[in-house]
């Protein structure tokens, strides 16, 4: 879990927090409320997840409960990877 979180944080930092501010992002901060990612950023994030962790994200899974913070993303990735 810690490794997944670390990878998510690194990806977000390298692609969306380029003006600094990595330290200010908490694991439970909402990307939506913080204005960190825009609509195409979410699509890039999903592509990255699919490529990095080797699963497919269904269109019905593109919801805030699965994607809208580092914690939620990590839990979603864990669930997807645990599926046979």
């Amino acid at each position, binding site marked *: 879990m810690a490794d997944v979180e670390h990878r998510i944080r690194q990806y977000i930092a390298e692609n969306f927090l*380029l003006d600094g501010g990595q330290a200010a992002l908490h694991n439970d901060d909402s990307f*939506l409320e913080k204005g960190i990612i*825009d609509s195409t950023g979410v699509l890039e994030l999903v592509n990255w997840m699919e490529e990095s962790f080797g699963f497919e994200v269904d*269109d019905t899974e*593109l919801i805030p409960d699965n994607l809208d913070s580092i914690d939620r993303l990590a839990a979603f990735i864990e669930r997807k990877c645990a599926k046979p």
Partner: protein
Amino acid sequence: MPLTPVSLVHQYLLRSAERCPSKEALIHAGRRVTYAELLARARSLSGWLVERRLNVGDRVGILTDDARDYVTAYFGVLMAGGVVVSLNTQTSSRVLASQLGRCQASTLLTHQKFVKYLEADDIIPSVGTIAVAGGCPEGLPSARWVDLDRVLYTDRGEACRDGDGPPVSPSSLAQIIFTSGTTAEPHGVMLRHSNLVANTEAIVQYLRLTEHDRLMVVLPFSYSYGNSLLLTHVAVGGSLVVNQTFLYPNTVLEQMIAERVTGFSGVPSTYAILLNRSAIRQYQFPDLRYLTQAGGPMAAKLGHDLKQILPQADVFVMYGQTEASARLSYLDPGDLVRKAGSVGKAIPGVTLRVLDAEGRPVGIGEVGEIVATGYNIMAGYWGEPEQTARVLRDGHLWTGDLAKMDGDGYVYIVGRQSDMIKSGAHRISPREIEAVLLEYPAVHEAAVVGVPDEILGETIKACVVVKDGVRCDRQDVLAHCHRHLPPYMAPHHVEFLAELPKTSSGKIRVAELRERV
């Protein structure tokens, strides 16, 4: 019963608040705001601005993503005789200082979350008052900072100019919208009350909007497309369901069903996201009457897919420019297949011609520039008489868009004269980004181009030549861009080159850079 005609933009709110005071005007972030509430708040703001000696024609910036505050501020400023300066919330300190400084705005209405762009207190000297919603920041000089929430909840009775007589007239300036042009700085498009009213009336007519319409708004109000959504629905007393982040499209789709929306408006990338990355095929939208798309022609496949998924909804493809208050042409839904790829014909009250460089009409099927005439055409660019004279000639707008017309008078856009990048809902000038890149100490030369993208239409590529003996990588360049530019203007791709390809006369070969993906 026919609606009472209006000649000033804010009279739309006055009219709807009188006709249907308890009707929902806005639904946003769990709040439902009636026309009566909206008018009461707009009056409070207007009264406060008049008390603070806002002069007719003074510019007031609005920078907020709170839809209720935005709409309140929009109409409140107009009621006080001011000119609305609509600011994109995706901004930076640099862009904000430039826009507010150039139009010499006297007041800024904003939200606490955008104060970070204003932290250097001397950033915009012309702005004497900054009214902040959501809590005024502590430790800042108090004379300049005002609590906007308190302003909006204070009843000031009739201490406002409701526009019933002079000094505001239909030819008075109502709004400035910044739009990227061919220069390094965006142009401030000046729109009169008469421009906005003429365009609003035409759109209401061809979309057949009524007070029963409920629109899902995902586009920002600060752009002319979003602005026209706001004005047309307030004009008819309809309802706006606002969710402008569009981060999770399924959330928007569910809201559309729950709120029983009758209309949806997007740019090509909005529809690309809905069709390729949402669960739209698993929902049903029994109340959806129409869809609109502007910002580019609709690909035949997209039109076909939309009609399959939403057979009951009319699809209106539209074309326009900020310089035309928003809208210039629309394709009747019945022609979507027969005239695929067309942006249709001129809207009511507008004449469109396709002319050659000498101003002569080109033949059927030949390419020329679209030239538009109508009451919706802007007054000019703020503080730029030369740029204005370049595009406004004898009252006709030379759009810079290249098109051909078929034998039935349908317009087909084929390109632009400039190398403007169209990415999602944004029009982006490569010059603005190049100017920022060149300020980075390691950069010797830079050129910015748009490269094709399946969802966004285009994404931004920066081609950079680094100074001899200096080290600099992609992250350095991107970090610099993100510090000084709004996120949507930051390049997606960076390519380092030993030199930029140029013609013998020294012009950069843009087409060659575009192809090097």
